[in-house]
């Protein structure tokens, strides 16, 4: 039977097992929306801004590992989606974003609500398509899902002109696609894996440096097994948190610009560095010249060859899927009879413990002001470490990463690569849709939350019982911190004036608002909020205005050049 393009879109999404489509209607997608209306295979979530649709799809994808789906109209709908697409791209998140386009005959005519979506998104997608013929539609959508979710994941845009959604063709959904130009490597090269294992067994001062790739490839189990059988120290990037349990003594904390003293020092001074699904980002290793260390050998496992040897030279590159490569390594290590240098490892741990004893995460616990770190510690306690935590961007993001000890993967959901303020609440919506029974907290700042505050309305419509943890310092705190350190305390445009009464604001959207001003009220308020299982609670914590994130490596400096408290 012949179907219209719009019917085909909806059928394809159903075939892919799509549960939720986050979107916003408009002229170019009206045919598609009409089919959305008629079906019951997936649920459509009407957001209040297209950026939020993409972030919500993204949050869903990060929490589940499945591909998130967003649907937007042409022109302004499409451009509003771009920030969300770029956010997903930088963190390698699998998304399929369907955008409407003006009819094929109108393309290039400066038609109403026309933008060159394929052109605009080209630098921030894994791939994109403009479908000009309805006969290509089903296969293109199949390819989009395949590309988004395999290899190094990423967002894929499918731009569909309105006439294509009206045209009819015979519908068959391909079971499988192959593309001669796209063949991601999964298994690592056996010879390279052997060399790496040999190097690992000979190490005297080893260090595991893990990243988002561990989470993306669902390799937490393999990583935990590998680390524990060797007893090596391990650190993680912001994106890899939860890939290895943070409460485990082998875990040295996050590394990088706001990483722990012990993780950064061990990273700098190890003799064998094993990088796993991490890309030597500038926020992680600082200045590559300073990072270089004579005699240190580097093993690098990554599915994307461009991540390897991009910023630092490596000795053993392994292109492959983290999960497969680690499983292979575990096998080889278990079978190996090689005697490891336990004495050297012990000396290395003594050194690390010495660094650890600096206690770089200490803060003033006797303050009469609410310390943001304290709120996160209490959040961890009240939720028994079992919440999904999303965040926005700024100081609060770093405190959430540092003080909420993530023991499981896919629990920590934040925008690391693009650093998108406004990500937190819509992402939390996606998480809550994926896990309706779970505790979902969004740690945010008064600057960030106002970038997508309209989504409180979506939360009301769909009864999403999020817990918004606003660390309200009345400043664009991260900006203020840099101004304090590097710009002579000139706080140019970083004070957040004229803030709304957040409690009233939340209440006017039909939610519960709370304002917490004293340290002794923090724990009680959190308990009360999390006891309200079916309500969104917006918690406005009035925190110490001038608190800073420590440790800190100033931009361009090296890992051992940290500013401590």
């Amino acid at each position: 039977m012949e179907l219209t393009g719009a019917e085909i879109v909806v059928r394809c999404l159903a075939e892919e097992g799509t549960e939720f489509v986050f979107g916003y209607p408009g002229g170019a997608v009206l045919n598609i929306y009409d089919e959305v209306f008629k079906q019951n295979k997936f649920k459509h979530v009407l957001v209040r801004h297209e950026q939020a649709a993409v972030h919500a799809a993204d949050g869903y994808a990060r929490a589940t590992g499945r591909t998130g789906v967003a649907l937007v109209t042409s022109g302004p709908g499409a451009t509003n989606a771009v920030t969300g697409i770029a956010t997903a791209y930088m963190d390698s998140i699998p998304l399929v974003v369907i955008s409407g386009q003006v009819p094929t005959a109108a393309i290039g005519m400066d038609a109403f609500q026309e933008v060159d979506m394929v052109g605009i998104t080209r630098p921030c997608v894994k791939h994109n398509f403009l479908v000009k013929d309805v006969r290509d539609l089903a296969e293109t959508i199949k390819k989009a899902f395949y590309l988004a979710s395999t290899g190094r994941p990423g967002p894929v845009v499918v731009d569909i002109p309105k006439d294509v959604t009206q045209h009819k063709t015979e519908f068959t959904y391909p079971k499988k696609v192959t593309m001669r130009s796209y063949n991601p490597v999964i298994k690592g090269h056996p010879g390279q894996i052997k060399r790496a294992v040999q190097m690992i067994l000979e190490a005297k001062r080893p260090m595991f440096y893990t990243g988002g790739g561990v989470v993306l490839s669902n390799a937490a189990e393999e990583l935990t097994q590998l680390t524990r059988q060797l007893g090596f120290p391990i650190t993680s990037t912001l994106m890899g948190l939860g890939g290895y349990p943070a409460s485990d003594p082998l875990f040295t904390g996050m590394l990088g610009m706001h990483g722990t003293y012990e993780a950064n020092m061990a990273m700098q001074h190890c003799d064998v560095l094993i990088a796993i699904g991490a890309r030597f980002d500038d926020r992680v290793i600082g200045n590559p010249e300073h990072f270089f260390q004579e005699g240190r050998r580097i093993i690098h496992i990554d599915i994307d060859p461009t991540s390897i040897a991009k910023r630092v030279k490596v000795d053993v590159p392994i292109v492959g899927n983290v999960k497969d490569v680690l499983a292979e390594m575990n096998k080889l290590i278990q079978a190996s009879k090689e005697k490891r240098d336990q004495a050297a490892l012990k000396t290395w741990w003594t050194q690390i413990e010495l660094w650890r004893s600096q206690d770089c995460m200490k803060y003033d616990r006797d303050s009469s002001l609410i310390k943001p770190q304290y709120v996160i510690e209490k959040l961890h306690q009240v939720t028994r470490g079992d919440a999904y935590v999303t965040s926005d961007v700024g100081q609060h993001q770093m405190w959430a990463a540092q003080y909420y000890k993530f023991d499981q993967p896919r629990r920590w959901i934040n925008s690391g690569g693009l650093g998108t303020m406004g990500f937190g609440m819509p992402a939390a919506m996606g998480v809550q849709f994926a896990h309706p029974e779970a505790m979902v907290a969004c740690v945010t700042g008064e600057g960030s939350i106002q970038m997508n505050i309209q989504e409180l309305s979506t939360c009301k419509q769909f009864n999403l019982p999020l817990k918004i943890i606003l660390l309200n310092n009345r400043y664009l705190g991260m900006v203020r911190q840099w101004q304090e350190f590097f710009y002579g305390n000139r706080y140019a445009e970083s004070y957040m004036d004229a803030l709304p009464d957040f409690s009233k604001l939340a209440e006017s959207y039909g939610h519960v608002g709370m304002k917490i001003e004293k340290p002794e009220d923090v724990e009680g308020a959190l308990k009360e909020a999390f006891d309200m299982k079916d309500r969104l609670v917006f918690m406005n914590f009035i925190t110490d205005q001038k608190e800073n994130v420590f440790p800190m490596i100033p931009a361009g400096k090296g890992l051992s050049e940290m500013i401590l408290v």
Partner: protein
Amino acid sequence: MENEAGALSRVAGLFSARGYNIESLTVAPTEDATLSRMTIVTRGSDDVIEQITKQLNKLIDVVKVVDLSEAGHIERELMLVKVRAEGDSREEMKRMSDIFRGRIVDVTDKTYTIELTGAGYKLDAFLEALDKDAILETVRTGASGIGRGDRMLKI
């Protein structure tokens, strides 16, 4: 690469977005109409060339990438030069063109248009050899390249 609309802009976009230098780029369909072949001339340290190769391979439309400069290869570029050819210089121009194995493909009483094929440096040398004022217009295709002998880029 796949002979798809937009494939060229993905390559060009990659070079500008990542700040790679691009000296020339030529592209046309091959005997297999689903594929087109592109020759890019670029410059960079070994590390940069390695990244460029990997980044090109990562583009979904790119089927295969070969660094021709790694081994024996042939490089050819076509240039059309319109030169002043009057009075005494008319004969001189003809001679220069012959020396460089050029062909005069268009003639007026005041000008010649010379077609020249060769490696980029040969075309440069020809332009160097001419009196600057005699050059009225030049157009170059950019280099196309192919491996020597058995070396083949084939799918």
